[in-house]
């Protein structure tokens, strides 16, 4: 052991600096390949989860129980949230299905479709919504709503031909409003069943565009306006987004569920409320990430093997001499394993510093712009540690095997270079 250390330390210290730097650089790239590639893949979908939470649900999301039109005991729930100091902000929302007509100044001509589409219209407390989801950050054009904005509406970009990313796809059954922009007048019709439709004209104050579909496909007005439009259930709301400290989430959800059983409301964490297809994508990305990591691991193994093998082959004569003067083969092999560990540890250390010190902050500040999410780099210390452990295990193996192959060669042949 001591001789192994003695040899390894000196070979590292006095060996070619360029070669050592190159090997460490390769090991660092291998580490990044293991952590960053899979981290970015997972980050594409995790980015959408983050946006889903930040722009739509908050940490806890309450919606109507299945088969119900609204959350039961809504006002009692709101009172509870107002008095719970774990809740930093919350936004109660009224939602109802509506149609919106984009052309008011003329009737459609023969065989011309009405410039009309259907969407959910959401009544919000503008200040509470801003505090909860920062709706103003999702305004692509125009301005956000203010509490006193009576007669103004925000329209989701997915409803407008001019702003929707799918407008040129000509999807059957999907209709976009044409010629509607900030300042346009639109007519919203809410069908109230037996009580007949409620119709109101609004001026478009802003266009909302987010990578969360639930935001970009809705229309927003103030809750005062929608309460006037809805003749019944004026106090009953459909959903509430709640902000709280992440650590409080399990207990808050548990407490809320005790007070408001499943028949009254569906109470979920943000993660639970994520649609299952996004979960499936996450699983797929995870599988892809693992597959790529496995390939990276094989490449890493081969790389270390080749590096150590070449190193050992070029020193074959000296290995023979060491054996000749009585240095045990195990000590020589141990020195090569130590060198491999050094290369792996240095590469991992630099890779970790680069991942957490540069790449992760960079991708958080400058997410990758994907159509369905802002891709971030998902890299956790525990995940990085696991990959370091795997890389080191592979490194030890890939260092040991070539050293053993060379060391077990005939001593005299090695000394004489035969």
């Amino acid at each position, binding site marked *: 052991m001591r*001789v192994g250390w003695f040899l390894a330390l*000196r070979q590292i*210290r*006095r060996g070619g600096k360029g070669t050592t730097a190159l090997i460490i650089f390769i090991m660092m790239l291998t580490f990044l390949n293991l952590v960053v590639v899979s981290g970015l893949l997972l980050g594409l979908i995790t980015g959408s989860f983050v946006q889903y939470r930040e722009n739509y649900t908050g940490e806890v999301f309450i919606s109507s129980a299945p088969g119900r039109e609204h959350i039961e005991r809504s006002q009692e729930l709101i009172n509870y949230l107002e008095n719970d100091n774990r809740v930093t902000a919350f936004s109660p929302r009224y939602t109802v299905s509506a149609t919106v007509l984009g052309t008011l100044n003329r009737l459609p001509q023969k065989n011309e479709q009405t410039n009309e589409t259907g969407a959910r219209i959401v009544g919000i407390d503008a200040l509470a919504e801003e505090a909860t989801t920062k709706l103003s950050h999702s305004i692509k054009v125009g301005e956000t709503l203010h509490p006193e904005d009576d007669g103004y509406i925000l329209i989701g970009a997915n409803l407008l031909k001019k702003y929707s990313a799918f407008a040129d796809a000509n999807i059957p059954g999907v209709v976009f409003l044409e010629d509607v922009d900030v300042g346009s007048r639109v007519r919203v019709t809410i069908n109230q069943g037996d009580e007949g439709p409620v119709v109101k004209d609004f001026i478009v104050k802003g266009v909302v565009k987010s990578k969360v579909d639930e935001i970009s496909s809705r229309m927003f007005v103030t809750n005062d306006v929608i309460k006037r439009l809805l003749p019944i259930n004026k106090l009953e709301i459909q959903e509430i987004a709640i902000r709280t400290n992440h650590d409080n989430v399990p207990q808050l959800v548990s407490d809320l569920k005790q007070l408001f059983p499943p028949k009254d409301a569906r109470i979920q964490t943000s993660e639970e409320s994520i649609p299952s297809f996004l979960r499936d994508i996450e699983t797929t990305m995870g599988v892809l990430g693992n597959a790529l990591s496995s390939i990276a691991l094989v490449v890493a193994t081969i790389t270390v093997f080749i590096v150590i093998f070449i190193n050992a082959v070029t020193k074959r004569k000296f290995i023979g*001499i060491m054996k000749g*003067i*009585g240095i045990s*083969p195990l000590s020589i092999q141990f020195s090569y394993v130590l060198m491999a560990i050094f290369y792996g540890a240095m590469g991992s250390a630099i890779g970790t510093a680069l991942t957490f010190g540069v790449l992760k902050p960079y991708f958080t500040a400058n997410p990758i712009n994907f159509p369905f999410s802002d891709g971030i780099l998902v890299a956790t210390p525990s995940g990085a540690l696991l990959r370091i452990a795997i890389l080191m295990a592979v490194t030890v193996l890939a260092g040991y095997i070539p050293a053993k192959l060379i060391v077990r060669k005939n001593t005299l042949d090695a*000394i004489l270079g035969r």
Partner: protein
Amino acid sequence: MISAKNIVKSYGKGELELVVLKNISLEIKDGEFVAIIGPSGAGKSTLLYQLSLLDEPNSGEVYFNREPMLGLSQTDKTSVRLHEMGFVFQDYALLPELTALENVSLPIIMQGLSKSDAAKKAAVALKQVGLADKFNNLPSQLSGGQQQRVSIARAIAHEPHILFADEPTANLDTASSQTVIENFLDLHRNGQTIVMVTHEKEYAKKATRIIELRDGVIVSDKKN
């Protein structure tokens, strides 16, 4: 004491077989300085490799202190080389990343001494060969003669029973060769057993016994 009995060593097979050592038997007593001489291809170095357990003969036996050696495992042979033998190679065979002191310390550390104790013994050996001022020099910073003296220091520092030297002066100029031979004579005067292969008769004459090989056979074995 080391001895060989009926050593046969050949390379290749069938028609290509070349018999290098033909039934060699000899005995080297403690304290002897033996020079093995002969023309190129006579089998001098091959005989040295068999005696020093670096190679195995096709038949015959090598005894060290009357114990048969050829049945030992590679690990045991390595251990015998570490504790009982020292080697001086023709091309010095120093490890390039280790200083002179570290090169000499290496077998001593392998024997189990601490690094500092090994360094002390290594320093004594280096002083013995006249390199007291070259402890921290890497092999690349030493002349050929100095490297060979470091090699000698490495071979004797762990106090081996027997010192093997394979053409130790072949790569050296006359002055350096003289110094190396003087080192060997000093060691011999202190009781070191030495087996040296050389093709230079002038240096062979310094030994106490000269064994001459020709075509794999001992043609003469004389006390000097």
